[in-house]
């Protein structure tokens, strides 16, 4: 199959996700302006950082008088999950050139990651993988940046009663459903969510997501190992 076909398949797979990305992008555009930064700052965040939750964290820290160092640490902590995603994607893309992989890395995000891995795991053919990923990621990037610009322009026009920021966890629900395929994955999710809440209650701040994810990965792996052990007599 030509790569264009795979790229189209990627774009088609991510298109429904845009319904959730657009409200989040509006927030990413409106929040910096509402906190006294100019529109270019919002566009800079969405293109240079290109990771919504961390963009909002940077604006939040700086607008409440925090230092740039604290803002950077908060953003990088929130984005630590990208290391996990990178590790999870890498085995599937070893046949691609380094230059292409480094280009693909810039576009890495939750939605594209969550769509690509199950598809690649279900199909041994390696030729269309990167095209699928790029087709999905480019459409998402364009949607994200366009929504950010719209957020800059419309900003104040969106009533406070519309909980735009709540779009993020809701979209992730739809990404979570197809990866809950067996007992270990359910154990990983339940432990990951529960541990993230407990870490937050214990004062882990932006680190709680990573603490939760690590606990979930460990619990899911243990559950998986147990399942594989032959029953003892």
């Amino acid at each position, binding site marked *: 199959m030509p790569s264009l076909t795979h790229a189209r398949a990627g774009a088609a797979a991510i298109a*429904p996700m845009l319904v959730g990305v657009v409200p989040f992008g509006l927030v990413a555009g409106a929040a910096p302006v509402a906190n006294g930064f100019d529109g270019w700052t919002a566009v800079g965040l969405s293109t240079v950082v290109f990771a919504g939750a961390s963009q909002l964290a940077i604006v939040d820290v700086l607008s409440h008088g925090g230092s740039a160092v604290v803002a950077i640490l908060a953003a*990088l902590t929130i984005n630590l999950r990208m290391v996990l995603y990178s590790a999870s994607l890498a085995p599937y893309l070893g046949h691609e050139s380094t230059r292409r992989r480094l280009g693909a890395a810039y576009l890495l995000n939750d939605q594209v990651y969550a769509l690509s891995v199950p598809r690649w795991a279900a199909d041994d053919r390696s030729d269309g993988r990167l095209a699928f990923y790029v087709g999905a990621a480019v459409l998402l990037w364009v949607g994200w940046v366009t929504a950010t610009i719209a957020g800059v322009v419309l900003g104040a026009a969106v009533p406070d009663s519309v909980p735009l920021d709540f779009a993020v966890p809701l979209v992730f629900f739809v990404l979570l459903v197809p990866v809950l395929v067996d007992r*270990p994955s359910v154990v990983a999710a339940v432990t990951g969510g529960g541990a993230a809440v407990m870490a937050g209650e214990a004062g882990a701040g932006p680190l709680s997501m990573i603490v939760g994810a690590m606990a979930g*990965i460990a619990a899911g792996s243990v559950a998986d190992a147990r399942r594989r052990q032959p029953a003892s007599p």
Partner: protein
Amino acid sequence: MSRIWPAILISGAGTYAMRASFLAFAHRIVTVPPAVARVLRQIPPAALAAIILPALVRPQGHLDLLQPRALAGILAAFVAWRTRNVGLTLVVGMGVVAGLQAV
């Protein structure tokens, strides 16, 4: 407010480094040992749930089960599970939050 550009550039560079961390060396990975693959498979459910649950039960930074987002989350989870439809999940989730805030 000029502190934001250094913050943007350094956060962007750091985030890119994390995105590229393993992808940059993928050509050296000939085969992934099955034990490692089984651990990697736990990443999506664990990471997604670790983002979702705190957003539902501690939206203001402390545990609170009696607020709109917790209830909206339960309903939205059910819709996502039955339909896998992003639009429907968003309408139900955000609609319930907006509706409960209005009462």
